[in-house]
């Protein structure tokens, strides 16, 4: 990772949150979900950074998380438990 972005000891929170967002969006316990969620979040963050402001990109992924929780709480690829 250090080859493409600067690494600092304070990165932990950011990446923990990002991983959580990806897993929830993709669907807890689903490997396809994690992969597709990662792609979706990654691409949408990049696009949001391009179209809006780069500092707003994480807000976009949190917004996506809230949307998924509202419309499809088990995640895009998760199985409904109930």
């Amino acid at each position: 990772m250090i080859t493409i972005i600067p690494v600092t000891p304070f990165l932990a929170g950011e990446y923990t949150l990002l991983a959580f967002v990806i897993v929830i969006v993709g669907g807890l316990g689903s490997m396809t979900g994690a992969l597709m969620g990662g792609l979706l979040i990654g691409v949408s963050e990049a696009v949001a950074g391009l179209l809006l402001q780069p500092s707003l990109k994480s807000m976009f992924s949190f917004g996506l998380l809230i949307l998924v929780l509202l419309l499809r709480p088990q995640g895009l690829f998760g199985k409904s438990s109930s």
Partner: protein
Amino acid sequence: MTFARRPLQRLVGDASPRTLWLLAILLALLLVAPAILGKYWLSVLILALYFAYVGQAWNILMGFAGQLSLGHALYAGLGGYIAAGLFFHYGIGPWAGVFAAVATAVLAGAIVGYLGFRFSLAGVYFALLTIAFSEFTRLAFDHWEWAGGAGGLFLKVDGGTDIVNLRGGPLLFYYVILALAAFAFILCRALLESRLGRYWLAIREDAEAAQAVGVPVLRCKMIAIVISAALTALAGVWNAFYYNNLFPETAFAVGRSIEITLAPIIGGLGTLFGPSSAPSCWRDWARPSPTSARRSASPASSRSSMAWRCW
């Protein structure tokens, strides 16, 4: 949820007369403390009371109802920003602005709670959801011009005492936070002794079992998060007017949320005395130097040095 015929007796419950006397003595000591203590110790006491108060507020959600929230900075930050923004832009004093602040925080708490509790997100998933919401809000405030954006919101300091607008020296803020802390203590006791409090304890111990015996789990959890958010918003308003500055990076920081959780965790989850007494123990007593940049052992050390600079 309604009180019995004699609410005071119910509030006291099985507390021994000795406990009540000790509480009365403690309150009396705190009331006269500013007359005895110097400026520095007063500022330490103010922060200790602040953490006692927010700890008590957080404890309602975690200690009583058993829902781990690591995003309480969201409610404190929202409360502080709304009240400070109203005062800054429209001259609406904090005693009126506090209603808008609390209403906003209650709405935020209800949204977070409903999204989380509707699907029984529990434990660490709920905690991460609360963090996500507070981070989301932090980024939103970073770009919101009305709230000053990333550059922060500053309240004017003219040095005079104006109780109507909550402007004044540390003494004023000391008594306000003391009143809040005492109020939260009594409120928590009342809640714990009520039917709702018993429902919360049942949910905390086993939500499914509680549901099975007819406890309205979702409603009780919602009430818990709403009360907790409202109380935390009050702390946020106080905090904003005490420090006179607000930045999204600190007001909504995850570290701020962690600070709120420390006192109840150290003092004892679900107890009344835990959140109240712990802040006085874990505070960094060392007189911070203006150049102190330590942020290691105690997150409070940087805060107390901030308080020191306000003098």
